[in-house]
């Protein structure tokens, strides 16, 4: 298992959401796969220095969305395979990230050509994960 959650306080994203988003990202990129075990609420709370209720809330949310499952006496496990969003939904989720990227690039005076080449380079480094449908 490779779970490396980074919490930043003072962010406009609540902490529980930072956890759920990072777990989802880890599943989406294949770093976490079905039957991988997550730390217990208490263990994760202590290692991230957070109120356990915050971690419990994040796990609760992930469980409700069918991504993880708590097995009494055994621990918390990933149960969902990497899932591909419907294209429209995927596009909707990408939109704000693209806006942020463009905004930053414009602020730093990147030309469209430069940005394109950065983008091409990034994509060329990207290997699709196994198990991707």
């Amino acid at each position, binding site marked *: 298992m490779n779970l490396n959650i980074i919490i930043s306080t*003072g962010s*406009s994203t609540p*902490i529980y959401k930072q956890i759920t988003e990072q777990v989802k990202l880890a599943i989406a990129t294949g770093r976490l796969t079905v039957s991988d075990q997550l730390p217990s609420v208490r263990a994760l709370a202590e290692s991230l220095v957070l*109120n356990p209720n915050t971690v419990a809330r994040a796990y609760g949310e992930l469980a409700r969305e069918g991504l993880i499952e708590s097995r009494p006496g055994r621990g918390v496990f990933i149960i969902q395979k990497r899932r591909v969003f419907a294209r429209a939904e995927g596009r909707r989720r990408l939109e704000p990230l693209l806006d942020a990227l463009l905004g930053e690039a414009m602020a730093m005076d990147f030309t469209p050509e430069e940005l394109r080449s950065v983008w091409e380079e990034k994509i060329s480094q990207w290997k699709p994960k196994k198990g991707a449908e």
Partner: protein
Amino acid sequence: MSETPVIQTRGLTRYYGRKAVVQDLNLEVPRGSVFAFLGRNGSGKTTTIRMLMGLLAPTRGGGSLLGCDIRALTPAVRARIGYLTEEHQLYGWMKVKEIGEFQSAFYPRWRAKIFNGVIGHFGLRPEARVKELSRGQRAGLALALTLAPDPELLILDDPALGLDPVARRSLVESMIYLTRRSDRTIFFSSHDLGDVERVADQIAVLDYSVLRVSCSLETFRGSVQEVLLRFAGVPPTLPPVPGLLQAFRTKHELRVTCVHYTPETEQALRKLEPLSLELSPLGLEDAFISYLGERGEKSFILADTEVAS
């Protein structure tokens, strides 16, 4: 759930001369919560805590700790409460371990394991003299003395004050350690909203002696919203908007912070016919600053044209 709150106050009020320092405070701290008591300097937090601990008589109103009237706290009830003051009053001539042994004599439930654990966590040598300790180490020692009696209720008056980041992290870790027992309650005042965000689940905000908010941290965050309105020209004058905290204008933008953003708020803003209206959530610190900062409309840049419009 309907259990009596661990801390409860009713109309708790304190005057110094003719000035109300704490006014009609109604506070309820549920058992098992980590409750952050927030407010600017001089807003009445320490005065409230001193009244709770029975160190200062209320001018009127009252309250209870662990079900016991704060005007008549018995030694037995006090033994179940850990209280950490802003100034850590410690005997300078004692060694760290001696002060632990000394203090343990007063508490039937003293747990040497906790005491040693906390001083170890703060990197304190048992043989060190108290007067030779740094500010952070003194805080660690004071915290160890407060936690070792295994209190049901922990009241910390600005425990992070003057601590370096490493000592502060140790403090927060110790607080989280304490939540291992779900029946333990922590009530603490703080200015460090990063720590509050990590550790607290409930918050209360005092502003000029008056309690303005008491709710879960998430509820508070969710209730303060920032709205960015873009205009082709100079933004128009803002009409009365329900829940407006602050408005800030630049050349083509109006940035509005509101509490309790409702469809009515949005309607009022849409009437200005902006090119776009964008909602963005605020971090805890920004939400807090908008909430307690000066209200009304502000501008750094367009002060002159403001007068014209």
